[in-house]
């Protein structure tokens, strides 16, 4: 297991506080946990892409970063309107 793969697995520990936030806190805090989880997952995918040695896999991280932005904005709009 190379350095990139080990770091990717180690980075998964950063998802535990996000999961606690998402499962146990208020609605806005859950959204913040989701946003943080999206960033962490983007980093994990980038590390996995580097571990694989094929730069095409960076597109997955790129797609996730874009989709997390759109998804989080939709959640924010709904939370603003008390839904």
């Amino acid at each position, binding site marked *: 297991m190379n350095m990139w793969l080990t770091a990717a697995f180690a980075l998964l520990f950063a998802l535990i*506080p996000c999961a606690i936030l998402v499962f146990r806190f208020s609605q*806005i805090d859950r959204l913040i946990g989701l946003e*943080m989880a999206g*960033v962490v997952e*983007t980093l994990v995918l*980038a590390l996995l892409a580097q571990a694989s040695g094929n730069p095409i896999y960076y597109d997955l991280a*790129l797609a996730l970063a874009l989709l997390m932005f759109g998804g989080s904005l939709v959640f*924010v709009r709904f939370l*603003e309107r008390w839904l």
Partner: protein
Amino acid sequence: MSAAFAHLLVWLVVALTVFCSVAMLIMRTSLERLHFTAPVVALAPLLLALAVILTAGLGVGVAKLLFITVLLVLTNAVLSHATGRAARIRRDQTWMPATDDRVEEE
């Protein structure tokens, strides 16, 4: 030497991300929690790109990683503002500042 520095940078990324994630959980209010996404977004992909440059040199992967960094920084600025705004609206029922928030003019 550069490989050791790349190792250091990658583990710095891991430490920074885990630290900010735990700190986000410890903070008391939503707005305090929101601050801890910024270091991860702004520093972690940049340090990762530097580590990739040190091990593999410049290439398509580094270009994509730098693009992801720029994208994350730009989108996180918008998202943080929108989330903070939603948190304030849910707390105060309005986005407008309360009268005691305004700075008194001399």
